[in-house]
């Protein structure tokens, strides 16, 4: 069964409203940025309801004919929303954006707006834990003692970018030299071109080397000793890669 978690007031009100109308024949739509949990919410509230995607108009129309209760995802993708008849049906739709506002207004009795993750810091924390747990098991990584707050998170694309940033972080933490070589190998095979390749792609190695070194050893003088290069050479490289 789908689970859904949120401490957001807004979402709690949405859930309350849905629970009240569960037995009524009204049409509802949840609109919000992609990957904010609209579909999960619909599934969580209506676990046994048939779900069709708006990508396929014909399928939606067929499903409407044969069912009194239906979840329609990606409602904005439907090519002909006008043709749908929601009379005496319980419709739960999800959409990434409103599209034709008048039409949506006309079709749906309940129009909910799903807040993006950025407005739900507590939810982010909870979802982050879930994703990390999932990632650790999928990547078959033994439980680490890393600080959760250290995991850099990206919320620009809600759950999608959040999940991606967690996986990337875990992958990075677990790479050895061989993995890095292999990553570089694949990257270069794809991108190496032109007539200044050596200088251009040397930066892939030099820049992180100097950045990490400066962070770890603090001064340029100390770093030049650790790296075994002249202080002036180091300064030149720092300038070349625009490192502060």
């Amino acid at each position, binding site marked *: 069964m789908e689970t859904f978690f949120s401490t957001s007031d*807004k979402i709690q*009100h*949405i859930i*309350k*409203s*849905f629970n*009240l*109308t569960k*037995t*009524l*024949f*009204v*049409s509802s739509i949840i609109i919000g940025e992609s990957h904010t949990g609209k579909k999960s919410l619909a599934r969580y509230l209506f676990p046994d309801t048939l779900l069709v995607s708006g990508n396929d108009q014909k399928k939606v129309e067929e499903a409407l004919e044969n069912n009194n209760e239906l979840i329609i995802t990606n409602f904005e993708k439907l090519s002909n929303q006008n043709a749908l008849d*929601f*009379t*005496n049906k319980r419709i739960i739709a999800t959409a990434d954006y409103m599209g034709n506002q008048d039409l949506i*207004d006309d079709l749906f*009795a*309940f*129009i*909910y*707006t799903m807040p993006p993750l950025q407005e739900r810091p507590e939810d982010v924390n909870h979802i982050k834990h879930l994703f990390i747990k999932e990632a650790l098991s999928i990547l078959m990584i033994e439980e680490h003692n890393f600080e959760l707050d250290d995991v850099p998170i990206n919320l620009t694309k809600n759950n999608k970018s959040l999940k991606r940033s967690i996986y990337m972080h875990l992958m990075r933490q677990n790479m050895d030299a061989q993995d890095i070589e292999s990553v570089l190998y694949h990257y270069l095979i794809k991108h190496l071109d032109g007539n200044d390749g050596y200088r251009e792609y040397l930066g892939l190695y030099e820049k992180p080397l100097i950045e990490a070194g400066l962070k770890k050893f603090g001064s340029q003088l100390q770093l030049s000793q650790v790296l075994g290069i002249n202080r002036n050479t180091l300064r030149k490289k720092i300038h070349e890669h625009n490192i502060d």
Partner: protein
Amino acid sequence: MNTTSIDFKSFIEWDNNPFILFSDQGKILYLNNAAEILFGYVTKQELYNISLSYAPQNFGYKTTSLTLNYDTFMFHAITVGYENEEQISLRLYNTPRIKTERKIEKDKLITTDINILLEANIALFRTKNTNSLKLLTDQDLPAFKIDQNNFSKLLRKTLDAFRASDSIDISLKLMFGQHVLIENKRESIAQFSIVANGRYTNTDAEIRTLAEVSQIKCMMKEHLSNLKFLLSNNPVID
């Protein structure tokens, strides 16, 4: 044709359009039946002022098109006239009410507990607004037949119009002592009303249409919206 012998008074008396005759001091010299009812909703002074503002420059009669609304009274024109310095008359013309052929789609009507619909709509309202809401409702209102989707839309839009108000009072109650007889059966009337300190009017037309489709009488004023509906399980009206 000699008309002087005919007494027109009773024709004016029973005209459905209000007619008032003022003295030059603004006192009412005569008013017909329709005007008497109208005075329950507007002051003497206001109508007298209107008469003076729209009076013709010289002796005679002048008709002006304008829109006047007093509660449920709606007028689309007035005639102001005087033949001497002592008396001035005002006649208001009722706006014709368009009665469209209503088709009740019986298969759309489902027995519903309106309190559930109302609460769901309040929850929806709260997802977007943080205004303080007060709800006074009668949990024992009997379930009745409505088009749930349409009624929900009506509630949503009626509530939404008050989104900028900082305090909103919602009440839902049975109208005691008011009934409508349908096929010899007494059907109760319930009233849903919202009182707040401001209302957006841009969706009024849509609200009226939605209300009409569901056989609901609606009245909207600056600080208030009222919806009256039948608690009937046999909705064959008009």
